[in-house]
């Protein structure tokens, strides 16, 4: 038996597998038909492989432009298995998601039910209607008090990442202030819970299709 021990040890090592984390910290990412919700039915969305890479645009002179690359890097880096690939494009006509540094059209913030109310700036993103997402998805991110306010860059950085999270499939808000998807976010980056949530969203069934340009 002693002579077999090294062989048994080698075989035991040679057959080991990675143990994946349980992602128990993921929060609800679907839009559920609860009181106050904009959804009449449970809505779950993620970008399918056929719609990738997902092209994101913001005007080059926009105050949001410096923060787009950071936000794309954050969300691209959340995935381990190529589930999503985001790229920046320079032509809004070829974009799937458009970030604009303006108040929502018709001054109607409620038209975009997914919001972020950060200190100094606000964001709002189109939502799917009747299980259909009309492309391009628009996100509006604007200063509450003017562009020259100290800290506005940090606020834009946080809210660009937050609104992009909505457009990628997190259709609700995190209950924790430690996550960028909190309704009034203060975290400039993704938390482990944000990563686990978007991973879960992309490995769970979706019931929203996209329509419009591609």
């Amino acid at each position: 038996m002693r002579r077999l021990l090294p062989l048994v040890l080698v075989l035991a090592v040679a057959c080991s597998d990675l143990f994946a984390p349980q992602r128990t910290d993921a929060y609800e990412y679907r839009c559920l038909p609860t009181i106050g919700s904009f959804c009449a039915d449970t809505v779950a969305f993620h970008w399918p492989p056929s719609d990738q890479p997902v092209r994101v645009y913001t005007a080059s002179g926009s105050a949001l432009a410096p923060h787009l690359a950071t936000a794309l890097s954050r969300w691209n880096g959340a995935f381990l298995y190529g589930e999503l690939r985001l790229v920046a494009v320079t032509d809004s006509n070829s974009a799937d998601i458009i970030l604009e540094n303006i108040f929502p059209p018709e001054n109607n913030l409620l038209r975009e039910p997914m919001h972020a109310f950060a200190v100094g700036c606000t964001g709002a993103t189109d939502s799917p209607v009747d299980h259909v997402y009309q492309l391009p998805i628009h996100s509006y991110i604007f200063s509450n008090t003017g562009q020259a306010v100290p800290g506005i860059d940090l606020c834009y950085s946080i809210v660009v990442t937050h609104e992009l999270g909505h457009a990628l499939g997190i259709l609700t808000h995190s209950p924790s202030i430690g996550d960028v998807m909190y309704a009034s976010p203060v975290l400039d980056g993704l938390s482990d819970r944000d990563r686990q949530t978007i991973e879960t969203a992309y490995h769970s069934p979706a019931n929203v299709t996209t329509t419009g340009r591609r």
Partner: protein
Amino acid sequence: MRSWFPLLLAVTAAHPASAQRTVRLALGGTWSSDLARDAVLDNTVLTLGVAPGGTVGVAVPITPNGSYRLVIEAGYSTSTLSASSDAGNAGNLSRVATISTVAMLDGAIHGALRWQAGGGLLFYRPAEKQGVFLDGGVRRYQLAGGMSWTHPLTPVLSLLILGRYSFHEFITPVLGARGYSSYQSIHRAGLQVGVERRF
């Protein structure tokens, strides 16, 4: 890679049986077992495609009759990296190059058939920092072995067929940081055809 050159020079000069020293060049393909599996995320599997590549090496006798040799090889291959999942939501990642460096003991089996066994280092070099290679390449220790067969073509040149197997444990910094534990056992098998020259 540069650190190998002094070692190569040292071993090639180590033994007087110069007639038995050989250099080799071979081309072929390498198959690898799955790099990672995640049963929590709807059975996601990360797979390397069959990797075309090449190997250069030297074999130097370490016994007076030449029955045992030291073989040092460096191999390069490149392959696709793709993920699949039950729901079909995983995708392709950028290509990954692997650089293998091994030192092996070599001995005769029968006729021109010889065995090799040893170990070395394996380097993963992704074309882009993304996915499981978000922090870039990684280096792993490996056990390696295999067989070779030669057939004389000229007095100094022989046809060479190499069969290679190697084993290493795979994990990357980003996998560790995201809560993955233990290692994924990776088995690699390769078949290459080339030439060996005595000098």
